[in-house]
């Protein structure tokens, strides 16, 4: 059964399939025709040979490609689409070509309005978001997030967009590359609570950088996304984040000194 979670493209006109950079703009029947026609042309080109054959092959190849992929660069250039899907509405210029997307979902046995109310309060964020120390509310839909990683402290400013109706929350970087973090809520079927979807769009460069870091330190955005959602679920369902830090064992106790 189709999940009721709003897809990101329902809200912001960006195809939600992870890492798809070219939005669909060719309708399903046109795709079939385009693929068949293109394939026919390629076949004819192979049989005909010569300059004309080559031309037919090239045109046929392009038609087939656009049919198979469902994306037509010519349509895109003129802002056209033969797809019945809602026309992509404008999103504050986000060049998806330069973004790496990470998506993770978790189901929490709490009603969506409760989850939304919890997430709306920036003061709750450090309790579950990995490496986030503090979130400062600057007013007028802006916040400053203070993070600490391996002793390195840094902070960044972000815009917060709240969509009360869709119960979605979008954080976008106020400076630097157009990165953003969206949290989308939907009802799980059969009254099983709320599906919380985290969508992280990172610039390709930062994506690569973080993946390199992942290889060295075992830390990467996907891991943070999963850990963050797991902790959020524990907080919302069980009222605490379960831990074994600080329990006794027969091992030596490492000394930690304040930095």
């Amino acid at each position: 059964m189709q999940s009721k979670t709003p897809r990101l493209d329902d809200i912001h006109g960006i195809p939600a399939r992870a890492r798809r950079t070219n939005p669909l703009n060719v309708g399903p029947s046109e795709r079939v025709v385009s693929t068949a026609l293109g394939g026919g042309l390629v076949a004819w080109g192979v049989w005909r040979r010569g300059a004309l054959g080559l031309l037919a092959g090239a045109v046929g190849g392009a038609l087939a490609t656009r049919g198979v992929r469902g994306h037509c660069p010519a349509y895109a250039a003129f802002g056209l689409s033969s797809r019945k899907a809602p026309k992509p509405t404008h999103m504050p210029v986000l060049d998806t070509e330069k973004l790496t997307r990470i998506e993770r979902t978790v189901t929490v046995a709490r009603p969506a309005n409760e989850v939304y109310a919890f997430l709306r309060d920036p003061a709750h964020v450090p309790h579950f978001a990995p490496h986030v120390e503090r979130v400062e509310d600057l007013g007028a839909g802006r916040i400053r997030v203070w993070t600490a990683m391996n002793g390195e402290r840094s902070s960044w400013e972000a815009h917060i967009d709240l969509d009360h109706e869709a119960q979605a929350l979008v954080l976008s970087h106020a400076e630097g590359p157009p990165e953003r973090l969206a949290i989308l809520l939907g009802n799980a079927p059969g009254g099983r609570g709320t599906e919380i979807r985290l969508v992280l769009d990172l610039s390709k460069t930062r994506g690569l950088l973080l993946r390199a870091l992942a290889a060295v330190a075992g830390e990467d955005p996907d891991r943070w996304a999963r850990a963050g959602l797991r902790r959020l679920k524990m907080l919302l369902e069980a009222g605490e984040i379960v831990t074994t830090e600080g329990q006794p064992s027969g091992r030596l106790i490492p000394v930690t000194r304040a930095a």
Partner: protein
Amino acid sequence: MQALCYQGVNRVGVETVPDPEILGPHDAILRVTMSSVCGSDLHLLDGYVPTMRQGDILGHEFIGEVVEVATEVKKLRPGMRVVVGSIIGCGHCFFCQTEQYSLCDNTNPKPEVLDKLFGYPTAGIYGYSHAFGGFAGSHATYVRVPFADTNAFEVPEGLPDERVLFASDALPTGYMGADLCNIQRGDVIAVWGCGGVGQMAIQSAYLLGAERVIAIDRFPERLAMARDRAGAEILDYEQVDVREALREMTGGRGPDACIDCVGMEAHGTGVDYAYDRVKQAVRLETDRPTVLRQAILACRKGGTVSIMGVYGGFVDKFPMGAAMNKGLTLKMGQQHGQRYIPRLLEHIRKGELDPSYLITHRSLLANGQMAYDTFKEKRDGCMRVVFTPEA
């Protein structure tokens, strides 16, 4: 405090460690009055579970007295005597709400290992390796109990520790094994393994309406206990061909349900046993499913095989064809103790169940190595050794 710690393969020792502290708002600290060894500890000690770390405190089956509760604990008060289910539930997730506590989403703080190995992580367990959360175990003076209101149950007045201790693990595990069989009038149940869980499964099967229970083992004193204490008919698999015997004893039908109370380190007599022994020794398979194979072949058509013995990884030569074509129902799982403990305490209070006969030996923590050796080798008729931790 004193605690019995894992020190290496088949090596345990008492160490002086810090007392446990309240770490979460739903925690309670217990002074442990009794803590039992368990067959599943042997899998950890034998080194088949790779996420044990030197210094981990062992033990998951215990009873004690509440000494301290955190701010959000509502039901428990210091001074209460409680028995605690060995598997930790949060009480609020989908699985806890549907009484499948051992599948709890929220009590394993280190879910990565099981997430990879099992597809989804399962609940945390005391003293049961870091894959299951790495919680400090109960072979200690004190133990921390997370989500105490969900996991600790007050012991009815007048019942001694001996009778209630096994309501922590062996009894609910055996009871669940029988419960999963969906026992109908006239059913004959076969139980493999006459250790603590097997003994409890036999008694539970009778409580749930079984006509006859047939118990299978090879240790004479365990078989005698199954016969005299639990009322089972007994089979020594070293003396008889188990499948032939079960077929004849059930009028050619086969047992209606089979309960595996043995698990991944089963012992057997056939060629397949030698094969598994070798493969497990060189780590080509993690679990020896000798009992499971036999149960599937012995079970009547359309019957139920209930698996309570612990498996941790992969098995070979699983008779899937028999299971499929005979239309068997396979049911299994770590025990959902919190679902069963209240009704089991009621059975104990009424005198319908008395698991205290499982205790054949007592020990101080200081003699932990000897206790585990005796238990493992089943020396001196050992069924269960129970620690009474010293202060």
